[in-house]
């Protein structure tokens, strides 16, 4: 039995399943409602597969109006709603409870407007991240945030989790590339925040909604910033025997005034697994590998890589190799983006996502190796070195409950280490349920109280994704309210 608890489902809601499903079907048609147990099981988890629970039903609306109808029904009856993009969350952000409705945006997948003059695209939020870049490719533009799951993950989920990616050192994360959103509030009202202008005006509600893990509203449309494609890009591989020296090299490059678009780090174990998997040409005889990418015209790339090489040489790298062709560059990135899949070939793994100040990199890496020995579990490191966003992958056997528990404990210790080093629990995956019970490592009760008050404003009954982000004991008094209150109201209206 896994150790992250979810609240007991409300049996009275479960008992009313037929009636709730009938209401949903009446509102959005039967093709948009999934309720047979053999079908709802497909929605029992996201990419945090250790935790599963089929929802009461799944609603897949086609329009913003339909989303509004679904939320209105759920609000009236008091049913918890679990918003879902593509279900790629590594943090359990889309994990249902047995008394909840999963509201999926998969059928909201159209481009509404492309405006190259204003460098923006307006899309429905079920579109995948990569398909947004695809939609503007012919205009020589792209959408910058590039999470590893970009082939599958939806813009709605990107906004909910404020997703990052490998290239955010230069281009920022989702919140820095989001201009506007159409949001359906829990009570069904549709609001528009921002749009084509650079600032939305008033308090930054858009910035607040981005990264709120589906707890404030359901985003159905998004206006996203698109950027002109660079003339070219080229990565360089730098291999070191000592992870600490690799860390210093990263810091020296940044200090020199060069801002590469990406600086990725892999340790020995990750290098070997990725090379085996993707044949990307990584050197397998080093303990630390940096993939550094710069952009521009050929001459500009030469100039920047020249400077990087001069700095790197001072740290005596064992390997220093520029990509020699577009094909090679693609392979290098394919290897990096396949890292999680490659590790999955070695063993089951749990992927952590803490961020640390880059100056603490050597200390944290060293401490993690010590902890690996203490726990008797291997850990591989693949991460965004330029911004200190670590992804330690702890290898374990998922069929061994004891080892799984040990793995979760080890993971929690790593995240505590990140916070102690001056960093945070999660850099881009989100809190979900995975880091929910660690929130008090980073925040005190008052820091969390003010955040929960924000949710009180947007969703006073705590129906939207209620058991996520905040430790259950902190949110208990709020989550408890809706049931009695609404059950009474509903009866009264019957």
């Amino acid at each position: 039995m896994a150790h992250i608890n979810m609240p007991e489902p409300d049996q009275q809601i479960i008992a009313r399943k037929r009636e709730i499903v009938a209401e949903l079907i009446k509102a959005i048609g039967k093709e948009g409602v999934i309720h047979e147990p053999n079908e709802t099981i497909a929605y029992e988890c996201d990419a945090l597969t250790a935790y599963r629970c089929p929802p009461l039903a799944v609603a897949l609306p086609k329009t913003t109006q339909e989303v509004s109808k679904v939320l209105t029904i759920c609000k009236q009856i008091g049913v918890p709603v679990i918003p879902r993009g593509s279900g790629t969350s590594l943090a359990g952000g889309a994990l249902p409870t047995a008394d909840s409705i999963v509201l999926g945006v998969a059928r909201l997948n159209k481009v509404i407007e492309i405006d190259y003059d204003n460098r923006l695209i307006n899309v429905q939020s079920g579109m995948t991240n990569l398909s947004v870049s695809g939609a503007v490719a012919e205009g020589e533009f792209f959408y910058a945030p590039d999470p590893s799951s970009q082939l599958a993950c939806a813009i709605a989920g990107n906004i909910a989790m404020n997703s990052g990616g490998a290239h955010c050192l230069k281009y920022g994360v989702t919140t820095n590339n989001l201009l506007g959103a159409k949001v359906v509030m829990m009570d069904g009202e549709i609001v528009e925040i921002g749009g084509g202008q650079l600032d939305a005006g008033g308090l930054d509600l858009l910035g607040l909604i981005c990264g709120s893990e589906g707890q404030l509203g359901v985003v159905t449309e998004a206006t996203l910033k698109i950027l002109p494609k660079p003339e070219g890009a080229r990565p360089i591989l730098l291999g070191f025997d000592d992870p600490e020296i690799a860390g210093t090299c990263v810091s020296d490059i940044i200090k020199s005034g060069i801002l590469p678009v990406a600086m990725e780090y892999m340790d020995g174990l990750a290098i070997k697994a990725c090379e085996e998997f993707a044949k990307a040409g990584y050197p397998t005889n080093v303990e630390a590998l940096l993939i550094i990418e710069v952009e521009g015209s050929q001459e500009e790339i030469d100039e920047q890589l020249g400077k990087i090489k001069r700095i790197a040489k001072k740290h005596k790298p064992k390997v220093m190799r520029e990509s020699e062709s577009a094909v090679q560059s693609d392979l290098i990135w394919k290897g990096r983006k396949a890292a999680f899949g490659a590790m999955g070939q070695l063993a089951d793994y749990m992927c952590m996502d803490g961020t640390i100040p880059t100056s603490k990199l050597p200390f944290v890496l060293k401490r993690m190796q010590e902890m690996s020995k203490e726990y008797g579990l291997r850990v591989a490191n693949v991460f965004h070195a330029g911004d200190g966003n670590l992804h330690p992958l702890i290898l374990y056997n998922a069929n061994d409950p004891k080892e799984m528990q040990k793995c979760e404990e080890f993971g929690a210790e790593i995240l505590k280490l990140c916070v102690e080093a001056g960093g945070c629990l999660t850099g881009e995956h989100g809190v979900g349920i995975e880091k929910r019970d660690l929130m008090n490592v980073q925040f005190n009760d008052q820091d969390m109280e003010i955040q929960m008050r924000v949710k009180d404003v947007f969703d006073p009954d705590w129906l939207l994704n209620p058991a996520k982000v905040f430790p259950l004991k902190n949110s208990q008094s709020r989550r408890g309210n809706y049931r009695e209150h609404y059950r009474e109201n509903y009866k009264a209206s019957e």
Partner: protein
Amino acid sequence: MKKLEKPKSEDALCDLVKNAIGNKQTLKIIGGGTRPIGNAVVADSVINTSAIKGVSIFEPGALTLVANAGTSLEEIQKLLATENQHLPFEPADYRGLLGTKGNSTIGGVVAGGVSGPRRIQVGAMRDTLIGVRFVNGEGVAIKNGGRVMKNVTGYDLVKLMAGSHGTLGILTEVAFKVLPMVEKSNTLLVRGLSDVDATIVMSKALGSPYDIAGAAHTPAQNTKNSYAVTSIRVEGFEKSVAYRLSQLKEIIAQEMGSSIIIDVETNAKKSSDIWKSIRDVTPFHNAKGAVWKISVKPTDGAKVVNALSAIMQVKSLYDWGGGLVWLLVEEDTITNAEIVRKTVGNVKGHATLMRAENDTVLKIEAFHPQAKRLANLSNQLRAQFDPHGIFNPQLMEKTSTRTMLEAG
């Protein structure tokens, strides 16, 4: 004379806020007092945060700066410059525009949401702000975000505090992602374009792969010459800048015809002065009339100005590729103010009254009124952060239905 408090620490500030609640007193919050933006605030006491000062962390290799909110902007800029780094969003100095004196604080820059021309390239102030500490309306110190640039732990109150003008809490500490200064910065100057053509040229430049670091347009009425000037800034390593300038010239000539006159300002000081003038809205310093800051979709900027020009005497300056319009309305009347708001509202933009000539500022909202539900959400958020309604009452919305000190 109102009581002026200058707390030296976050603890002292918490005590002051608790006392104010106990005494049912409202508070006006100021940093350096150089940017009095928003509705006029009438409060019982003034809290000046400039004594909560000092830089606690500056790590050039991690591009990180953490400072107490009262630290002067000048001190921070000087410190960053010792390592050849800077605040990338180029905070504007509004002293000339707003007729204020004193020293801007970094907390004021954050509370005011102040970003300059480079925001089109590197993002706004809110995009580089990575952490805050603030004291809420119950006298409790709160932290959010941190000192790392990738952080999605809990809700992003950092963004909410940025540009909240001291209506949600009093900032005590702010953390930024800083960036290296560039080796070279040149400005391309295109002569004589109409506002509409200038917008086209700026869009083309911003849609090119040449990483434009500024795109502004000054119509002829505001220049010392008799022609309009469209300025496009290119930054980076020396060779790269030269290459990009030549490419851009070709793009512009293709768009506007080969007879178009394009100059290049290569002198570092002169190029920097051009952008300082754009950033600080220098042409409107001491000008008679009301000054509006208008935020619209870039291609709507010139349309709004043209529509307004047909009705009233206006002068305009464009930044952010046309997305930011500084508008000088020569005759500052309520009627004109309402027309400005309506015209901007028609294209879903928003207009902030930054400086008024007459008492318009007392009669209309300084900030563009929001749609009803958004306004409600904002007011409810204020009620959660500042339940007694003591911080900068009415600064962001004077028609607020909130009663002050209702819970006091």
